[in-house]
């Protein structure tokens, strides 16, 4: 018989799952678990500055690896600080296993010190959650948490463990098998044939791919499908990297900040093939007017996504990879010359305009200058705001799992900790974190974590001393009444980064900005490069919120 405490069981089960890095912050109610973790020879702990940072470090690891990653937080404020990262994982379908300490079972419901109803709070933002009531349950719950997080549509799972359950000693005979993703259901053969018939019969089809293609590791297959049937491909924000931006069939990102030609091509398409995409409002604009002339084939592992926003002519519940594999032999190889020529014309007449693309002191120019110093192995993380959209538009992403951004929840403060997580998971790669001053303020404490871990993260801070997207919307849609979106003082981010122990430079003062970028991006370890951006620079084109995608402003 094996005899262990709940805390020791958790740590051993995590080791058996293959977990090697855990981000978190200890506190009273999770100390037994940290005590057990301190004896682990294989798991490294990353001490974050705030629990939200720990959650996003786990995000970064999970988003580049595709595997469930773990974060720890204590009860009460530890758990509430984690909520944003959990909600972000739910909306972007990221596999996380979040383990929180809880007050001892007899004290639950007494308003004990640092007690909060973590289970209740996380019901709407997790894929599933558990409140452990006996250490013996851990033998089922921990493998189940990993199975659930990684199966089907991935997502976050929370396990709340009262302190006395962590300390409880139990005897048990054997270890359970580690939790693994269950095989996806076999797609309906009839629906596959119907989809193939629609594709073969279409004159102006477009492939619309979402994060599901990344999650199911189906980028190469989706590309084969596009090339075989000559399907122009547009990507959601989550799917950037599925098709290289310089691929002739790439239409880039669709929606609110798409290039004009992308949204105009969607207006003309007669068949939309949605793979692992969920018709998010930022992608579709006014839904009733999205792809008005198109029939729809919708493939998703989550049955509840079919017909949720748009009714599909053919809906297929299944893993994108399996579905595309089944679809490929039934889809005709065709050059579709007329449609591709039309796409070419649209690209020529309505291109994405990138003014000052050669000037590293302008926003597009800076992004492109960074890109020129890196190869396709680099991982690009962003925060949320104007810089995020500029990078999504301009950065030449060419491979899946190299792009880390908060899509669904749009969490400012995501970038830095997620980039640290990516660097920890992929220590041989260079990780660039494009951020803005508003976003960086939100989890700036993680600069200390980057320094402590010597994470290979290069922060490119695009500073317009304002909340740029808010500023832009106030200017465009609120009668230029700019309010609460401009900071009155100028923070010296270079000094702050240096204070955290991070190399930092001001590109504004550099005589040779390209030389500075080249040197700093090649030098190992974390650094911050500050660049001032003119607050009058907006993200264009822009579809006004609630408008149809053809109603683009600017660009």
């Amino acid at each position, binding site marked *: 018989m094996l005899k262990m405490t709940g805390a020791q069981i958790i740590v051993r089960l995590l080791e058996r799952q293959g977990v090697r890095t855990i981000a978190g912050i200890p506190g009273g109610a999770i100390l037994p678990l940290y005590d057990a973790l301190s004896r682990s020879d294989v798991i490294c702990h990353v001490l974050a500055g705030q629990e939200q940072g720990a959650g996003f470090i786990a995000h970064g690891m999970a988003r580049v690896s595709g595997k469930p990653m773990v974060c720890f937080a204590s009860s009460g404020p530890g758990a509430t600080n984690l909520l944003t990262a959990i909600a972000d994982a739910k909306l972007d379908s990221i596999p996380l296993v979040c383990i929180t300490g809880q007050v001892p079972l007899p004290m639950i419901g007494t308003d004990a010190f640092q007690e909060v109803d973590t*289970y*209740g709070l996380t*019901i*709407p933002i997790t*894929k*599933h*959650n558990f*409140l452990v009531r006996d250490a013996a349950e851990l033998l089922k719950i921990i493998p189940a948490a990993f199975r*659930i997080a990684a199966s089907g549509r991935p997502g976050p799972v929370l396990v709340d463990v009262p302190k006395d359950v962590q300390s409880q000693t139990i005897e048990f005979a054997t270890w359970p098998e580690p939790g693994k993703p269950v095989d996806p259901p076999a797609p309906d053969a009839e629906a596959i044939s119907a989809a193939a018939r629609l594709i073969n019969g279409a004159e102006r089809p477009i492939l619309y791919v979402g994060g599901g293609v990344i999650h199911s590791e189906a980028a190469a297959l989706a590309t084969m499908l596009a090339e075989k049937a000559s399907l122009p491909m547009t990507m959601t924000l989550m799917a950037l990297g599925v098709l290289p931006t310089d691929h002739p069939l790439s239409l880039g990102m669709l929606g609110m900040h798409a290039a004009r030609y992308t949204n105009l091509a969607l207006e003309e398409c007669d068949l939309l093939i949605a793979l692992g995409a969920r018709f998010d409002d930022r992608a579709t604009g006014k839904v009733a007017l999205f792809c008005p002339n198109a029939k729809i084939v919708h493939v998703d592992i*989550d*049955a*509840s996504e079919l*017909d*949720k926003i748009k009714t599909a002519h053919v809906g297929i519940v299944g893993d994108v990879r399996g579905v595309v594999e089944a679809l490929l032999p039934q889809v005709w190889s065709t050059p579709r010359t007329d449609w591709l020529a039309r796409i070419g014309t649209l690209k020529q007449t309505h291109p994405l305009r990138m003014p000052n693309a050669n000037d590293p002191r302008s926003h597009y120019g800076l992004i492109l200058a960074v890109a020129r110093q890196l190869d396709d192995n680099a991982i690009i993380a962003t925060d949320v705001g104007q810089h995020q959209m500029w990078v999504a538009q301009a950065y030449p992403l060419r491979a899946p799992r190299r792009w880390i951004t908060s899509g669904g929840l749009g969490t400012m403060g995501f970038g830095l900790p997620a980039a640290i997580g990516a660097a920890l998971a992929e220590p041989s790669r260079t990780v660039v974190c494009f951020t803005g001053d508003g976003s960086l303020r939100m989890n700036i404490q993680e600069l200390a974590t980057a320094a402590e871990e010597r994470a290979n993260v290069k922060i490119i801070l695009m500073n317009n001393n304002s909340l740029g997207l808010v500023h832009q919307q106030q200017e465009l849609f609120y009668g230029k009444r700019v309010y609460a979106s401009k900071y009155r003082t100028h923070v010296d981010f270079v000094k702050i980064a240096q204070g955290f122990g991070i190399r930092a430079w001001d590109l504004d003062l550099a005589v040779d900005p390209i030389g500075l970028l080249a040197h700093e991006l090649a030098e190992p370890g974390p650094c911050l490069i500050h660049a001032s951006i003119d607050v009058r620079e907006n993200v264009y084109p822009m579809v006004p919120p609630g408008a149809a995608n053809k109603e683009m402003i600017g660009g």
Partner: protein
Amino acid sequence: MNAITTEARTVLELRVNNHPGVMSHVCSLFSRRVYNVEGILCMPVAEGRESRIWLLVNEDERLEQMVNQVRKLEDVLDVRRHHADHEVFERLEELFR
């Protein structure tokens, strides 16, 4: 006509794992979509390992999506749909007179 049958309604029968969080999971799905649950009945079955939950809900265009969401819950083992005249609520109504 009694109060139950004045609007188009549906009775959902859920077989679920029996533990303290299940009711929260089910009700939270409806409440966060601003979808009112008109009637709820829940009793343990299978020696207490499982429960059966009966929900009386208005039929609107979101019902299909709601049922799909309910099916996704880990603790929901089975969902069946019945017409609103299902006897479970008809007979219960007598207790509310």
